């Protein structure tokens, strides 16, 4: 009898969880790339602040509505500006950011090349 009630309650718990594994993975991936604006320096995924809890819920709902990852990022950048994304998008404000490592690499390469030629 005990065993049966255990099985039954487990079944109920399992059917209550309607999110598929894929949706949860996507939700985690997205929230890991979002900056928690209250607890700056933490991602929304890591944080348990009121804001982060709500934002996780919003992301979950948007995934359920069928929005893609990029559409969710776009939705949130309209609301909060690009700063909410950890991974900065490539645009005229971030050219310098994206190209600086490459420039430094080329510069260093040039120095080595010059030394070797000597």
């Amino acid at each position: 009898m005990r065993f049966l009630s255990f099985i039954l309650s487990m079944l109920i718990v399992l059917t209550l969880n309607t999110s598929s594994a894929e949706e949860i993975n996507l939700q985690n991936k997205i929230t890991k790339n979002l900056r928690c604006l209250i607890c700056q320096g933490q991602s929304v995924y890591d944080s348990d602040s009121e804001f982060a809890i709500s934002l996780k819920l919003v992301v979950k709902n948007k995934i359920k509505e069928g929005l893609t990852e990029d559409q969710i990022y776009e939705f949130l950048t309209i609301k909060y500006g690009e700063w909410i994304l950890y991974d900065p998008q490539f645009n005229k404000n971030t050219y310098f950011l994206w190209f600086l490592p490459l420039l430094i690499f080329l510069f260093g390469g040039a120095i080595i090349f010059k030394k070797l030629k000597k």
Partner: protein
Amino acid sequence: MTNKIIYSLTGIFFIFVFVIFYRGLSNSSLYTPTSNLKSVPEFSAITFYEKKVLYSKDIFQQNKFYLLNIWASWCLPCKDEHSILLDLSKNEEIEIIGFNYKDNFNNAQKFINDLGNPYSIILLDRDGTKAIEWGAFGVPETFLIYNNQIIRRFIGPLNTKLIIEIENYIK
């Protein structure tokens, strides 16, 4: 000769870096995001007393100023700004709409009963998802709205200085 140039250049470089970092120490580490949200977002919410569903496009319809104030009974700065909001609610030109954020109904009701009700409508946001539609991230937060456009956004509690600013807009 070249050694001297290299030494002085390195010296200048380190002084330069030191000055930049030293000045950075006094900068505020709190960054407030700049929202690109210009007009009233589309949402629906349940009203506080009647439990009726209201749509955003039905709320900000009249040709007057609206002040949307996000508050909660557990938020202490909200208590501070409440008397200011009560004073402002006497102004006929502006309608104050409350947005009860992640609150317990009984506590919120007690808050309003004890301190007075400056709001013409109070909307409920039980899980905080509607505040995200507004690009808000905490309480209290206030939006000045005219013609379905967000004119000004106040993060944190209002004070008398900001109220004067709001009154200047209305004029």
